[in-house]
C-alpha cells in the first residue's frame, strides 16, 4: 500500500514536471529524456510510469480538466446568481493564469495547438469531459433559471471561453497594460451582458 502511494506521488511529480516543460518549450521540443533528467530519474524508469510522451500529455489534460471541472462544479452547486457565478468562474480562471500559468499555457499551446497528439484516446472532448460537463451544466441551469438567453451551446461557449482564452493569451504575451485579475469583473459583466436573457 505504502509502495503504491509512493508510486502515485511519483506519477504526480512527473506530470507536474512534464507540464511545466511542455508549457515552456512546447510538446515536440520537449523529450522524455528532458523530463527524466529534470526528475533525476532514468529514462527507462520514467517509462514504467507512462508508456509514451503522448500518454503523459493526455494524462495531464485529464488532470487539468478534472481540476477545472471540480471548481466549476462547486460554483454550479452554490446558491449564487448566474451573474455572480460568471464572476466567480472568470476570477478563478484569471487567478489560475497568474498562479499556475503553466496549466493555461499547456491547455492553449499544447492541447489546443497539437490536436494530433490527442487523437488516439482523447477523441473529441473525451479528455476534457469533466470541464465540459460542468460548463454545460452552468449554461443549462442559467437558461432554466431565466437568466441566460437560450441559444446553441457552442455560440455561448465560444463567447465565454474564447474571451477568457484570448485574454489569457494577451496576458501570456505581456501585451496587457494591467494585471489580468484587475480585468476580471469588467469582463464578467461583458459576458453576462452578452449572454443574459
Amino acid at each position, binding site marked *: 500500500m505504502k509502495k503504491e502511494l509512493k508510486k502515485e506521488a511519483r506519477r504526480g511529480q512527473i506530470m507536474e514536471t512534464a507540464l511545466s516543460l511542455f508549457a515552456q518549450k512546447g510538446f515536440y521540443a520537449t523529450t522524455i529524456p528532458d523530463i527524466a533528467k529534470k526528475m533525476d530519474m532514468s529514462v527507462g524508469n520514467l517509462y514504467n510510469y507512462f508508456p509514451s510522451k503522448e500518454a503523459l500529455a493526455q494524462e495531464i489534460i485529464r488532470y487539468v480538466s478534472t481540476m477545472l471541472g471540480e471548481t466549476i462544479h462547486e460554483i454550479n452547486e452554490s446558491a449564487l446568481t448566474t451573474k455572480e457565478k460568471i464572476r466567480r468562474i472568470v476570477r478563478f480562471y484569471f487567478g489560475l493564469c497568474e498562479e499556475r500559468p503553466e496549466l493555461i499555457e499547456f491547455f492553449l499551446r499544447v492541447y489546443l495547438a497539437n490536436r494530433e497528439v490527442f487523437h488516439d484516446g482523447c*477523441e*473529441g*472532448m*473525451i479528455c476534457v*469531459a469533466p470541464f*465540459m*460537463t*460542468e460548463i*454545460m*451544466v452552468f*449554461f*443549462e441551469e*442559467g*437558461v*432554466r433559471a431565466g437568466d*441566460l438567453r*437560450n*441559444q*446553441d*451551446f*457552442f455560440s*455561448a461557449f465560444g463567447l465565454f471561453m474564447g474571451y477568457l482564452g484570448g485574454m489569457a493569451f494577451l496576458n501570456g504575451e505581456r501585451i496587457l497594460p494591467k494585471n489580468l485579475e484587475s480585468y476580471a469583473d469588467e469582463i464578467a459583466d461583458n459576458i453576462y451582458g452578452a449572454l443574459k436573457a
Partner: protein
Amino acid sequence: MALKLLWLQGLSCNGNAHSFFNVPDMAGVLREFAFIYHPLLPCEATLEEVSGGDFSPDVLIVEGALRRDGVPRGDEEALTLITRYAKQAKWVVCAGQCAVFGGIFRLNEPDKIAGALYAGQERGGFLDAFEKKIINLPGCPVHPEWLLFTLRMLALGTVPRLDDLRRPVELYGYTVHEGCLRNEYFEWKVDAKDFGAKEGCLFYEQGCRGPYTRGSCNKILWNGVNSKTRAGMPCIGCTEPDFPAERLFETETLMSIPARLPLEVPKRAYLTLTGMAKAFRIPRLTRRKFGEEEP
C-alpha cells in the same frame, strides 16, 4: 362463465373503442367475453336499456374524459351512469388517456373536465370513491393488446400488479425507449435528420419522448408488427399525464441540452456519456441503410 363487460363513454372520440377492434382474433374475443354494451358492437343491451336498467357488470370499461354535466348518455348524465355502474362492477378499467387523466378534453375546460382519478398530473378525478377497483390504462388510444391482457388477467381471477398510478407494471413498467430498434443510434448520438428516416435516433432532433414515457409499445408491437418509433415517428408521450403537450415534433433544448432527459438519468451522467459518444463516428451508423446519403 364469460366475464361480463360494460363499455361506457364520457367525452370521447371513440378512438379506444375503435382501437380495440385491432386485437388479434376479434371474433374469438367476442366469444371469450360477454359485452353487455359496447358503443360500436351489437350487444345484449342498448344504451337506453343500460341507462334504465341494472346489469351488474364484472368489469366496467370507461372510455373518455368525465364532466359533471352536459354529457347525456341514454336518459341520464354520463357521470351519473358511470358512477352507478362503477358501484356495481368488481373492476373499473379506464381505457385510454382521457379516462385516466382527462386528456385533450380536459385542456379545453381544466376546471370542469378530468379523468377517473386524475386531472392531468394531479389527483382530483370524478371516481375517487372507487380507487381500489380502478385499473388505469393510459394511451391515445390504449394499445388494444394492453386492454385485452388486463381483461384476461381479470377473467382468470388475477389482479395485475399495479404501480402507484394504478397502471399494470407488466405494461407500464417499461419506457417506450426500451425495445426501440433505434437504441444503438441513441447510444452513439446519431440523429435522424428527416422525418420518417429509417436510420437515426428521434430523441434529439424530432421531439421523441420515448426515453421518458412509460409504455411497452416497443415490446408489445402495434398490430403485432410495428411501433411509432420503429416506423420513424417520434413517440409523443400519449401515456403520460401531461399529454398532449405542445410542439410534439420538436425537442425542447436549453443551450442545446435536451430540457427533459431519459427517466431518472442524472444530467451530469447524460452529458458525460453524450460527450463520449459524440467523440466517435461509427460508419455503420452514419450510413443510410438504403442509399448513400447521411441520416
